[in-house]
């Protein structure tokens, strides 16, 4: 067998493995995988290095913006989630906006890897109100590696949200944003100054305590960790205990990964108090989603309707 045949086999095998974790649609990733590793990097639009602040601002068209950050662990089999999300983005947007769960959502997507081993351990997009978020999602580089230490750099992503975002929702209205982290492992034990220098390019000021960081982020962000049944860690007591200690009832156990979009929508609706669980499940049925039972189970025990927003005004929302 000559080199050509081997190369064909190698290429085909890589594509089989990519298909197995569901990322063949993500052309940025496919392109990068054909390059030497030394050239792997986040797309400039998603690179957190040297970013001062990611902004979520009101506009004439979206005067009541609420920021939603959805950050995916993209290591290993978790790389399937951006794709699931991408396929259902329209649905998420529809539920949030057309069903009036939330006014003027601005969604940001990002990818989380392992800062100990990955070339691209963190990617963060912009808060977008339109279909640019789809493009952002597809541009996430699904490096898919991870260090195999049962931990990923979630805390680095959380740090970015806590310290590198500014939102009109908070500054003008004192309203929190939403942070969803989709993952299946533990935080790294500490966030070191070295990582902050390497990944974010900011001057080091000592290490950051992880528990303290999650307390801090929750002051401005309603923070949820979605643990999907995508790996053996779904049933791992250490993983569950770790996130319960940090977020309490906001650890959401998702039995069917395909329902992640619906889960995010209903979580927001319930927290906003714009729906109750029954209403939300009715909405899911109406839009043809078969994931009601999974979502109900994931949301069992999660507090609802803690805050009310101004009554929804269909006239202004305008059914664009």
């Amino acid at each position, binding site marked *: 067998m000559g080199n*050509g045949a081997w190369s064909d086999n190698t290429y085909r095998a*890589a594509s089989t493995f990519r298909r197995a974790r569901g990322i063949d649609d993500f052309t940025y990733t496919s392109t990068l*995988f054909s390059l030497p590793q030394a050239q792997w990097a986040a797309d400039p639009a998603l690179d957190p290095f040297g970013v001062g602040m990611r902004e979520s601002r009101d506009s004439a068209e979206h005067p009541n913006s609420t920021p939603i950050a959805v950050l995916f662990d993209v290591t290993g089999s978790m790389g399937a989630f951006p794709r699931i999300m991408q396929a259902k983005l329209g649905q998420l947007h529809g539920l949030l906006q057309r069903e009036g769960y939330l006014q003027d959502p601005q969604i940001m997507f990002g990818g989380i890897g392992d800062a100990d081993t990955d070339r691209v351990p963190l990617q963060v997009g912009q808060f977008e109100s339109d279909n640019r978020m789809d493009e952002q999602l597809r541009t996430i580089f699904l490096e898919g590696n991870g260090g195999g230490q049962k931990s990923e750099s979630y805390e680095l992503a959380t740090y970015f949200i806590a310290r590198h975002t500014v939102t009109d929702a908070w500054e003008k209205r004192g309203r929190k944003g939403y942070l969803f982290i989709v993952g299946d492992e533990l935080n790294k034990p500490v966030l070191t100054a070295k990582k902050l220098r390497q990944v974010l390019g900011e001057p080091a000021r000592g290490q950051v305590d992880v528990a303290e960081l999650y307390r801090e982020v929750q002051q401005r962000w309603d923070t949820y960790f979605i643990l999907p049944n995508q790996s053996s860690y779904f049933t791992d007591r250490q993983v569950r205990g770790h996130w319960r200690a940090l977020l309490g009832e906001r650890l959401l156990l998702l039995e069917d990964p395909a329902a992640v979009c619906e889960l995010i929508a209903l979580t927001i609706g319930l927290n906003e108090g714009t729906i109750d669980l029954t209403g939300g499940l009715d909405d899911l049925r109406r839009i043809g989603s078969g994931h009601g039972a999974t979502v109900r189970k994931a949301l069992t025990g999660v507090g609802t309707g803690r805050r009310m927003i101004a009554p929804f005004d269909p006239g202004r929302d305008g059914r664009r």
Partner: protein
Amino acid sequence: MTAQRSQVPTGRHIFVVGLGFGDEGKGATVDSLCAAGGAAAVVRFNGGAQAAHNVVADGVHHTFAQFGSGTLAGVPTYLADRMLVEPIALAAEADELERKGVRDALSLVTVHPDALLTTPIHAAANRTREDLRGIARHGSCGRGIGETTWYDLAWQARARPGDVVQNLRSPGSAGEPPLRVRDCRNPTALRRKLDALQQFYRPLLALGGHGVPSVDAMASVYREFAAAVRIAGDEHLERLTRTGRLILEGAQGVLLDEWRGFHPYTTWSTTTPANARALLARIGQPSGYVLGVLRSYQTRHGAGPLPSEFDDRNGRLPEWHNGTGAYQGGWRVGHLDTVLLRYAIEACGGVDGLALTHLDRRGSGQFVAEYRYRGHAVRRLPLGPAQDLGQQSRLTAVLHGSAPVLEDLPRQADQLAALIGDLLRVRVVHTANGPDRKNRI
């Protein structure tokens, strides 16, 4: 034939081992055990992608190489630490299985992080060595399986260029430990080890025309492999035992065992149940039931002794699934050989039951009762001290110098099974009279 139910015990873990030189029917036996239910996983514990275990189930035929032979029965595969994993071939096999209707084939596989990785570099080195041997070929599959094990030995010996390790000359300095599955998750180690391996083999590969992909391409595909396939150690296997029994599927035959086979016509692999026994002990499980698989006649691929060989050009024993591999050599058949079978059973440390296959093809009608060697009758080959290749070479010489003494086999399948049970002092508990799952009892 009389339809007796399989008497393989339920509930216990089962080692399925071949009592010949491979091709005994292990795959179909494993499939049949899996189809009967109660299996949590099929565990591959030796060999690598060179395995060719044929299963025909409901009209679907697959030759299993790295996937366990329980795949068509829906049973997941665990590739244990002593398995040699070849990710590129694993992907190709997954594609093939999906074309045959197995959904998400790769999701059925879990791999031990310590398993050694077979790369295109090993395959090219293996083929180059065989080419250089010319007529004295060992009958290798040319897939780099032996080379994978050999590099591990060369590393342990810290071989320098020209050093001879286990009869093979070292082409370079073995400066890096061998690649393992766990390295696929660590880009730095992966790159370093691939570079070192390529460097090590460069002088040998320069002598042949066997190209290899670039280190970049290999590193990339191995990272994809680690991202797509579940990697988990003994604890995963231990968890599986809570949901059912393990079927431990041996690859190759006991008579090819690296230490118990007929040197030098052996494989670089432990083909006895020894590794599998150690594995069960390690996860605190009771030892399993050893099911020895044999055909109603003897077969062999490639070079090496086969005292009972006869010329079957007329095709009394047509072969369903075995061809001739360029590096492996031709397909050979012989009479059922009780001398070899007794030796194989002893080499396994005993066998609890026999699976007798190919009862539809017992065309030879005779079996080897004993050998004539220099005027003496030989019924039993002595099992020498452990790991004594000198002794194994002497056994090879005995086989080469022996003439088989033949006796007639009964025509009836049940009488045949009873006779084999008596001759080998192990009961036949499972029989097959055709390649399909439905031919199994």
